[in-house]
């Protein structure tokens, strides 16, 4: 941390506490000029302390190494309204069944099953078999719930993402998936 100046260090702390925040939000918190924030963000990126991802009009910043090698995939998942809703429900309920998730989200079981499969592939959640039921819980409950909640708060889908997501759900709900189960 020694090689970082005071401003860069404050920016880094802010990003660590608010993963997924965008430039304007950092500027508001820091109360310095946009140019200064941009300069320090560039420096932090070069030093590989933060990474950025452009999403619509905004560039979002994340501390390096929250989700190891699948950060980009996770951001893609979090850019979908339904995935976010499912994740928040899993965080709230700790280990709900698929039926509970379907009832909460209000879309077809086929769509929910597809979203759950993607969340498992991204190592965000785990599937636990319990008799004839399957329960879902966060992969790393201690650290992930805080980061995911922060990311969901700071990194949200724009109107275009929401529309394209609804198009996907329309086609998913018209057919059954391979892994439909309760």
């Amino acid at each position, binding site marked *: 941390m020694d090689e970082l100046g005071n401003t860069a260090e404050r920016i880094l702390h802010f990003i660590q506490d608010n993963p997924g925040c965008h430039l304007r939000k950092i500027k508001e918190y820091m109360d310095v000029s946009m140019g200064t924030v941009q300069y320090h963000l560039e420096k932090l990126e070069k030093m590989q302390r933060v990474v950025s991802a452009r999403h619509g009009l905004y560039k979002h910043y994340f501390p390096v190494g929250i989700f190891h090698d699948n950060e980009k995939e996770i951001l893609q998942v979090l850019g979908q309204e339904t995935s976010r809703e499912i994740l928040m429900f899993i965080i709230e309920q700790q280990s709900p069944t698929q039926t509970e998730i379907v009832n909460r989200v209000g879309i077809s079981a086929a769509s929910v099953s597809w979203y759950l499969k993607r969340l498992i592939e991204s190592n965000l959640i785990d599937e636990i078999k319990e008799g004839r039921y399957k329960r879902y819980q966060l992969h790393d409950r201690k650290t992930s719930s805080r980061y995911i909640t922060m990311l969901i708060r700071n990194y949200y889908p724009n109107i275009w993402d929401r529309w394209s997501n609804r*198009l996907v759900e329309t*086609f998913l709900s018209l057919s059954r998936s391979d892994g439909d189960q309760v």
Partner: protein
Amino acid sequence: MFSGLLLQTELFDGIESAIQAATGILAILLLALSISAYRRTGLKKIIYAATAFALFAIQLIFESLEDTFEVLDTSYGSVITSSMTLAILVLFFLAIVQKNR
């Protein structure tokens, strides 16, 4: 009376053009949405839907060209537009029956 009839025809032509333009814009919007959805999800069925929307947009362009240039308004043109309609329906059918992968 003749000029009234002419005005009415012009009005209907104008309405038809406006509806065609709106349909074209919607088809392009749906095509862009489905491409964006495919890039995000990688779902094969979305590719079928995107192709159907693209064909629909092409069909609209072809029909408006047929109206503008009489040389295109042949029985071949009718066969092409009917084939496009069939292809669009087949693609939507494939998008529905394709497994969610």
